[in-house]
Each structure stands twice: as structure tokens, then as C-alpha cells.
């Protein structure tokens, strides 16, 4: 049930975290920290908020591990907490999404299409952006996304299709504008 990103069986990791093992938290961070940060970055638009969201996610995992009974893959449960945390942050802070900084912009000027896609992604509605991010950017399966977002797998596929259609239109508009 667990994603290959959780090499140690997710249920074992969950059991260790339930027992308060600091080492288990560290293993979770080592194996998932980068992916969690990346997801949070795309959902929140800047690195500091992304790191705060990851930190908050770990706290929420600690606080609510007692409510996790293996009903979903542990990885899906953790990502669900992250996505919900980011949603709360977006609602609460209403910070301006961070534009790619000048250094990044300069370095990536040769990949203008990538930047255009990133900007178009920001303009997607949240549910489409989240599914696209999890499926296409982070490579999660629809079955995993369905668990994370607590939606049917068919809905996950539908939202991804709609997201890609919207991105395709946005990129086409950009090409026409140039």
C-alpha cells in the first residue's frame, strides 16, 4: 500500500512514531523531507512558507498519530496532512506567492517554457493544481492521490485531465503572445 518513497514499511514507521521514537521521525524526514518541501513550495509559492508547512506537518503527525489506524497508506496520510496544512496556510496567511527570485529567473531563462508552466500552475484552481502537482511533479499514482485528497480515483484522473487542459491552453496563449 505504501509508496516506494517509504522503503521501510509505512505501517512500521507509523508504529515507531506512535511509540514516540525520535529516530522514526528522522527517518521520515530523511526519506520524505525533500518531497514534502517541494509539494509545499508549489502549493504555497515560497520556500519559507514551505518549510514552515513541513515543520507543522511533522507536529501534526506527532499530535494525531493516535488517530492513524492504517486505514490508508501511511505516506498518503502524511501527504494529506501536508496538503491540508498548506490549504490552511493559504487561507490564513494570504501571503503573496513568491515570484521566482532574480537569480533563479536568470538561471532558468533558457527554459522559459518551464517558467511559463510554473506561472500557469499558480493560476490553476487549488484542486487541479494539487492533483497535477502530486501526479505529474511528484509522480504519485492516482490511487495514492485519491487517498491523500480523500476523493475517488476517477475524480483524481478527471482533475488531472482538466488541469493539463488548462495548462495547455495557458501555454498556447503564451506562444501566441510572443
Amino acid at each position, binding site marked *: 500500500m505504501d509508496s516506494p518513497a517509504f522503503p521501510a514499511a509505512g505501517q512500521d514507521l507509523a508504529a515507531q512514531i506512535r511509540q514516540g521514537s525520535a529516530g522514526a521521525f528522522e527517518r521520515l*524526514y530523511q526519506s520524505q523531507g525533500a518531497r514534502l*518541501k517541494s509539494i509545499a513550495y508549489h502549493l504555497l509559492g515560497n520556500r519559507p512558507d514551505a518549510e514552515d508547512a513541513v515543520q507543522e506537518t511533522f507536529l501534526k503527525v506527532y499530535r494525531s498519530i493516535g488517530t492513524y489506524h492504517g486505514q490508508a497508506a501511511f505516506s498518503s496520510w502524511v501527504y494529506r496532512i501536508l496538503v491540508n496544512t498548506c490549504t490552511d496556510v493559504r487561507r490564513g496567511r494570504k501571503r503573496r506567492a513568491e515570484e521566482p527570485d532574480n537569480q533563479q529567473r536568470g538561471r532558468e531563462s533558457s527554459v522559459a517554457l518551464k517558467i511559463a508552466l510554473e506561472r500557469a500552475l499558480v493560476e490553476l484552481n487549488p484542486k487541479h493544481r494539487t492533483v497535477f502537482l502530486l501526479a505529474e511533479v511528484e509522480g504519485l499514482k492516482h490511487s495514492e492521490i485519491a487517498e491523500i485528497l480523500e476523493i475517488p480515483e476517477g475524480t483524481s484522473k478527471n482533475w488531472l485531465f482538466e488541469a493539463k487542459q488548462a495548462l495547455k491552453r495557458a501555454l498556447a496563449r503564451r506562444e501566441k503572445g510572443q
Partner: protein
Amino acid sequence: MTEFRCEQLEQALREDDAEMLAAARRHAETCGACRAELEQWDSISSLARSLHRDWESPGLWERIQESLSAETQPKASLWHVWRFAFAAVAVVVISVAVVWMIHHPSPDTAEGRLFLTERALAEAKLREDAYVESIDKLSRLAQPVLDRVSSPLMDSYREKLTLLDTAIAELKTEAGHNTLNARLRNELANLYREKQKTLSEVLAYANNSSTAR
């Protein structure tokens, strides 16, 4: 196997069905429109994979560790708060008790010093009677000297004894109204002692005078 039609491409992409997509790709080899559509689709997926962000976050794990540690602290902190509260209450209670005891002394302490018990009064009266008896004997011996001798020193003795008698009379009256008042009893005893001493000095003066002659 039925032939894949262009109008099925959207369904294949929407359902993300592996078999349908494989058929669509075979169809695209001979269909320019579907090939262009699939290339755009694949291009977005390819670009998306490059959007994965990874950056060094020095200190993030430490922050997480600290916040997790802090999360486990509340029970201990709560105990510290309660322990401090108990200590503070204990200090207040003890302080109030000390203040109360100062302002409400027990009969065995302060009252015992200010007022005599019945037994102590009886003992004090016995001592006074002994003084009175001694003073009466001395007075009988000293009175002839006081009446006979005329000198500045004897005048002062007479004056002193008159003052002592007046004071003793007043104190005896006052002590009669406050029989258990220890202060009055002590002052009365002092006056008796002073009168006894003064009479002894008068007699000693008389003896010295007769010897000198």
C-alpha cells in the same frame, strides 16, 4: 482489436488508461492531429517533472526536532507550574499563619507574661507578706533613729521613705483592682525591696554614727 478513432483521444487522456493510451500512440503514428495533441500532453508531463523543487534547508530538521521536543514538554511544564503554585500557596499560608499568631498570641505565651495565674498570685502575695514583715521589723528599729537624728542625709532618707510609702499605697490600691496584673505586682515588690534597703541604710548609718562616737 477495434481501430482507435481520433474522438477517443480525449477519453484516453481523461481516464489515463494504459491500454487506451497505447492504442492512441499507435494511432498517432499515422494521425498528425492526434500526434500533436499527444506531444503537447507529454511535453507538459515532461516539464512538470522538472518542477520538482529541492533545496538545502539547514536547520529545518533541528527546528522540527525542537518543536517536537517542545510538544512533549507541556506535561513537565505543567508539573513545574503546579509545583510552583503549591510552593507559592504554602508560603502564603505559612506567612498568614505567622502574622495571625503574632496578632493572636496564645494564653500560654504573652498572656502568661502579662498576667499572673492564681498560683503565681498566691506566691507573689507570700513574697509581699514576707517583705511587709521584714519592713515592719526594720521600721520599728529605724523609727527612733529617724525621729532622733537630724542631718541632711537623714532628711533625705525620711523624704525618700515618705515617697516610697505613698507609692506603695497607690500601687497596693491599683493592684487591688488588678490582682492578676504581673507588672503591678513586680513594681510593688521593687518598692518594698527599695524601702527595705533604705531602712537598712538608716540603721547602718545609726550604727556607724554610734561607733564613731
